[in-house]
């Protein structure tokens, strides 16, 4: 079963085509990594999938259901969860409340039904000690963990991670990767944009390369990393 399918999706900002005829499928339970130089349109692609932006052309299907024109909140309820490249917690809410909001509205459940699950997620993402602090007081690593935790609280079938390992130390990165692996092991489909390649390749099943809004390669991570095109365009090495 296909979790997410994009068919010929395009998006322009004025004359600039940031997403150019992008098509790909992500089977259920798979982890797909997306790489590409800065400005390649990676975050825009996420915005199109979550519904923050609407596609000019093409179609987006979630588990076979057409969501091309569905608003962001409906896609969230349908199972799309997302973490932001620059963490955007609700700074005036406590860490716990951040999760409760996501869980109650994202899953359409009553508060009492999600409290335990929120606590479990906080435990897993090592934020339990910060539960009653306001999210505005967290460090960068903690904010990134909160991004992940909050996305998890919506109980996503498809989890979009946007450069979640960026700016972290090696040790911090390692522990975050372990958490993501565990989430993936539970069957959550993951699409992960990342510049920290070793973190990415340790989790994903396939890699997609984006450049100037176009897909220039998709397939086995090793093959992609060793392909001539990727080395030329992404790594800037002239062969």
């Amino acid at each position, binding site marked *: 079963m296909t979790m997410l399918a994009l068919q010929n999706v395009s998006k322009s900002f004025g004359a600039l085509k940031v997403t150019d005829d992008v098509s790909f499928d992500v089977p259920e339970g798979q982890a797909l990594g997306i790489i590409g130089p800065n400005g390649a349109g990676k975050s825009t692609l996420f915005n199109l999938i979550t519904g923050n932006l609407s596609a000019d052309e093409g179609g987006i299907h979630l588990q076979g259901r057409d969501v091309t024109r569905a608003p962001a909140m409906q896609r969230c309820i349908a199972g799309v969860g*997302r973490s932001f490249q620059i963490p*955007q917690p609700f700074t005036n809410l406590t860490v716990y409340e951040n999760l409760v909001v996501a869980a109650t509205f994202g899953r*359409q459940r009553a508060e009492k039904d999600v409290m335990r699950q929120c606590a479990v997620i906080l435990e897993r993402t090592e934020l339990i000690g910060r539960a009653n602090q306001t999210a*505005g007081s967290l460090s960068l690593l903690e904010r990134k963990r909160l991004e992940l935790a909050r996305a998890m609280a919506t109980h996503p079938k498809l989890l979009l991670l946007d450069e979640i390992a960026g700016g972290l130390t090696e040790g911090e990165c390692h522990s975050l990767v372990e958490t993501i692996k565990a989430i993936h092991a539970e069957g959550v489909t993951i699409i992960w944009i990342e510049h920290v390649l070793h973190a990415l390749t340790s989790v994903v099943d396939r890699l997609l390369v984006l450049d100037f809004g176009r897909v220039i390669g998709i397939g086995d991570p090793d093959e992609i990393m060793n392909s001539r095109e990727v080395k030329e365009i992404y790594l800037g090495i002239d062969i």
Partner: protein
Amino acid sequence: MIWVDTILQGILLGGLYALFAAGLSLVFGIMRLVNLAHGDLIVLGAYLILLLVTMTGLSPFLAAAIAIPLMFMLGYGLQKFMLNRVLGDDILPPLLVTFGLSVVLQNALLEGFSADSQRLPAGTLSTASVEVAGINLGVLPLLTFASAVLVIVGLNQLFYRTSLGRAFRATSDDATTASLMGIKPASIFAKATSIAMIIVTIAALYLGMRSNFDPNIGPARLIYAFEAVIIGGLGSLWGTLAGGIIIGVAQTVGAAINPEWQILAGHVAFLIVLLIRPRGLFPRAVD
């Protein structure tokens, strides 16, 4: 003793201003919408209560209880069909629309009820008083103040103890991210404005029983409400009560010195607070 009395009267008057301001503060806090028609909506509420009192002979309190659900629905419709359409990155369209609404409301009320000043019949309540430690306090001002405190406590409970309140705060922080968590900002905004209209109706009840009103007094109420919100610090509900009290006390103290100074003293107090604390007395920790 006369000064203690003056200050107490000022504090109680502040309760009325806090009622004016609480609805404005709620709406601004959640959707960054400055509702320039807020004062006129209070006046509309007062006329609605008056109409119900005249038609049915009920007491103003019972009439207000009937007016509250009507104003609640009006608020929902107003937000859903008008204000949500103009909210966005640009702050000018909502300002223009609410300014226009203010003009329309004033003229509609003028057409419907004439420019004669009106008053809600409070009966014996308007003169009733209780003596506390040698000072006479009016029952009506005491009720007004108690209602203001109840409204603020109620709003705080709503904001910090309920799921809807959390959604209010999350949307206030970042509406785009909130929509990714399954929250529909447009519907949250409509609920917020509906709740604000409940407070507007309570404010209208006490305004109408305490003093005369006519279709043109809305903008002046808006100014008091604004000043109370700004003094308290945007987004702080208890700050709004404090802001109302500061304006109330400044007005009664000003009036005690010279009756002509009442209104001016309130505005001067506002300017002084702004000079010392430009972000108000209790600004939110993170903006």
